[in-house]
């Protein structure tokens, strides 16, 4: 295979999170990019005098020690390009989630025209507009000024008009924005991105260039929200805004010689790309649980739906606690603990989001919380249909809370309990924090992305088959045979199994091998959504082989604490240890 001359031999990806900064290293070896290693350090944006770059330096220094290579010079600048002695790097890509919400307001002439296009454009980055101002809504200018100012936007996107007219209507819309800007002190004025009629550009520039920062992008009504130039203009605007908010981000851009991209967008792009690898017409669901927010990315055939929710396992825990009782959380913790102790841990965690669970007790509290993050996320993003109708084919779990587990089985159980989807679903775990790397590097180095997407970037936890049935009306008792199945390996060996009801029934298989599953006997009262039980189901085994979750439609725990603890322990034991991934 010939190698392009300007191919980057060493690539670093930086993920600037709210709490941690993570560095991933990729090398080009034997005609292919490989993931070499990762390191992380605390994100260093404690106040305005600090810089996120110092956190990046700390993480890179750790990576230097781990790999016994040099990437930074004595002034803590990246050594670029790579030198013959293997020091330095050729390329850097980064994404960030350590910024505040960019609070984008959108203004357009019609709900179904320019505003719809703007909504679609923002949805590609997981952003919901803080306010929508529509010229056709019939409100007085004073009311629209009130609405715009109440939303306190950092960025306003103004659109409307075609290339053959309607510029006067755009001016009327612009007037609202002009008065809103005049009402604010210069420092508080939002940045403006004009995506409207080119005929109005000159006048818009004349008025707004003196008032605030103004950028132009092609008319979104003409080119549509799927156009790359609109997306590029939006990302550039968000980057500019983030560089103002996050101390040191601009410095990182300068030193890395690249602009980063918002982490939400990077994660969404990764999931979108992965939907291409998934079975056609099946959804992939990516969930990235962070300290301040959770990203839910759902994609099918490259069609992405991205949500950023204010739920997390750090400073946002108190907000999460509003949606359920502490006793509910307590019931998912597998040891005796008082509610007040759980609450104390949660409060301390919200004050110190970088707190690492130092023992199995704290780890279990966080894992219980994570189950509720998943439940709440599914509720808020309307995932319940997807989780019930069998159109979900794959789940990717990402974030330090699921990554930093002693046993990947804990992460699998979190996913199974928190989402409880019906059908046959492959669970993957982002063990190395690479989910956003794929999206962030897709533009910079598509070859690298294609190589790491082919390799085992994510840990395949296994296929989980969850039949749907009502526990109360079913004839079969818990522990008795519910299904009869057969598994055939690549050599043609067949093994038959009776799958009991009300259990987590795991069949250990060789990791990464192909198998076929035949449903020999399925009672009428149960269904396995999305699975054609009359034909063999082919799958690649994960580190838990194949798992049958026959606990029923609702996961009800016993009422008393001792039985709850015993149940959780039982489920964990049923899942068993994970098979070490072969080299």
């Amino acid at each position: 295979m010939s190698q392009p001359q300007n191919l980057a031999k060493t690539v670093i990806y930086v993920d600037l999170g709210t709490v941690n900064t993570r560095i991933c290293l990729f090398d080009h070896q034997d005609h292919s990019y490989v993931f070499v290693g990762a390191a992380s350090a605390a994100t260093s944006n404690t106040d305005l005098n600090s810089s996120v770059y110092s956190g990046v330096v700390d993480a890179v220094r750790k990576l230097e020690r781990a790999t016994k290579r040099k990437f930074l010079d004595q002034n803590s600048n990246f050594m670029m390009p790579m030198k013959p002695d293997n020091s330095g790097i050729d390329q850097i890509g980064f994404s960030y989630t350590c910024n505040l919400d960019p609070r984008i307001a959108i203004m357009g002439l019609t709900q179904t025209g320019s505003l719809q296009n703007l909504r679609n454009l923002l949805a590609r980055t997981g952003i919901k507009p803080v306010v929508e101002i529509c010229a056709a809504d019939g409100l007085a200018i004073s009311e629209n000024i009130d609405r715009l100012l109440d939303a306190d936007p950092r960025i306003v996107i103004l659109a409307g008009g075609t290339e053959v007219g309607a510029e006067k209507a755009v001016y009327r819309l612009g007037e609202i924005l002009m008065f809103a800007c005049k009402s604010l002190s210069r420092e508080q004025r939002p940045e403006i991105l004009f995506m409207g009629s080119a005929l109005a550009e000159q006048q818009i520039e004349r008025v707004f260039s003196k008032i605030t920062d103004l950028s132009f992008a092609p008319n979104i009504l003409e080119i549509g929200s799927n156009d790359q130039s609109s997306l590029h203009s939006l990302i550039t605007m968000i980057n500019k805004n983030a560089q103002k908010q996050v101390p040191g981000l601009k410095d990182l851009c300068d030193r890395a010689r690249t602009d980063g991209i918002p982490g939400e967008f990077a994660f969404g792009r990764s999931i979108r790309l992965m939907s291409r690898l998934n079975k056609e017409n099946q959804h992939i669901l990516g969930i990235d649980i962070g300290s301040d927010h959770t990203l839910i990315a759902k994609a099918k055939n490259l069609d992405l739906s991205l949500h950023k929710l204010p739920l997390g396992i750090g400073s946002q825990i108190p907000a999460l606690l509003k949606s359920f009782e502490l006793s509910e959380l307590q019931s998912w913790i597998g040891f005796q603990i008082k509610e007040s102790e759980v609450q104390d841990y949660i409060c301390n965690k919200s004050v110190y989001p970088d707190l690492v669970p130092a023992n199995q007790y704290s780890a279990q509290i966080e894992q219980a919380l994570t189950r509720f993050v998943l439940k709440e996320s599914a509720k808020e993003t309307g995932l319940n249909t997807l989780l019930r109708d069998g159109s979900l084919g794959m789940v990717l779990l990402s974030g330090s809370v699921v990554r930093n587990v002693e046993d990947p089985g804990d992460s699998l159980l979190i996913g199974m309990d928190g989402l409880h989807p019906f059908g046959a679903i492959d669970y993957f775990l982002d063990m190395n924090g690479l989910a956003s790397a794929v999206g962030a590097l897709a533009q910079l180095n598509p070859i690298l992305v294609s190589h790491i997407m082919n390799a085992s970037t994510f840990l395949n936890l296994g296929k989980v088959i969850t039949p749907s049935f009502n526990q109360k009306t079913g004839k079969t008792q818990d522990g008795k045979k519910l299904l009869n199945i057969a598994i055939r390996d690549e050599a043609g060996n067949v093994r038959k199994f009776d799958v009991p009801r009300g259990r987590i029934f795991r069949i250990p298989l060789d990791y990464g091998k192909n198998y076929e599953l035949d449903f020999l006997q399925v009672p009428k009262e149960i269904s396995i959504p999305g699975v054609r039980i009359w034909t063999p189901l082919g799958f690649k085994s994960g580190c838990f082989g194949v798992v049958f979750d026959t606990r029923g439609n609702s996961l009800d725990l016993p009422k008393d604490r001792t039985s709850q603890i015993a149940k959780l322990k039982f489920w964990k034991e049923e899942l068993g240890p994970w098979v070490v991934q072969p080299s």
Partner: protein
Amino acid sequence: MKNSSTKIITSGNICCSRFLSEDGAVTVFPGQAVDPSTQIAYRKIWRKHFLMNITEMLEISSDENIRDYLTIKEGEFISVGEVIAKRSGKKTQVVTAKISSRFLGISSGSLIFETDPDDVENVIAGFPGVVTDIVPSRGAYLETIGSYLQGIWGNGKKGQGILLSMDMEKGGIFGLDNITVDIAGAIVFANTCLDPEVLKSSAKMSPGGLIFGSLSSSILPIAMKMPFPVIVTDLIGVGRLSDPVHMVLGENIIRFAYLYSSSNGTQNTQRPEIIIPQEEYVPESESLLKKLKTGDQIRIIDGFHGGELGIVVELLPGMENDSEALSEMDRVKVCIDQNTEIVLPLSNIEMINVK
């Protein structure tokens, strides 16, 4: 994310930052002495806008230029009863302001006014000190000399008072027997408080603030509702004041202490602070603005002319309908350029001190 170290200064130079969460207007200058209530920076919006159809009110035709009839300029503050527009001639018409507001501009023959200014964010000094450095659009660093402690949790309130201690030999638990008149106006420190009812009852005595080594998370919601500042220094749970914290507080008993925590509760990244200046705080006898005189250079803090420099041309007395303000000047006429003179409230300008 949080800073991984806790700052404790037993005695020495204290430097505190007072920043907005995002860009706004900074109202202090380097070298300025500040008192606890001095505003450092703010973000303000005008909540309500309304239209006034001046064409109808003046009974003029829609093709006439209404600017010819206006007696006010864009950005000007208008008081109740002040003349906004006037039509002379046979049929004299005068339009006056019904409510105090600011004139924003003209749209389709209507005047747009704004009222109900509201601080979206307001950062105050919280202790007496000196401004050492400004971070443009965000805030300032303040300094003083004394003792300083960072807590881990605060209820978002600010307060001050004489520092008092609970009887630590009895466990230092803040209980019902501690709620006496002695704690009125004082900053009291204790190891912990175990009973939410005790915390609620303490409000009757209006303490200046409470400092606890620990508080259980179940009591935090009650602490949040207290009208005075509550700061936890060491742990959310059950514990006591750590030795370094106890030592600093113990050494400063009967000194004046200032408690400061930003108003975002647990969402806030800035830690709550306890500041105990070495010198007794004496409020300034007069505000800097009272030294203002004709010919002084000022900067307009916000509004249409926000950020521009101007020269004071006249000091104006208070509004006629405000009897308390009659003797006090509260507005100022400022010349921005040859053609622009505007009247502004004193609080909307700042003096430019060049030393």
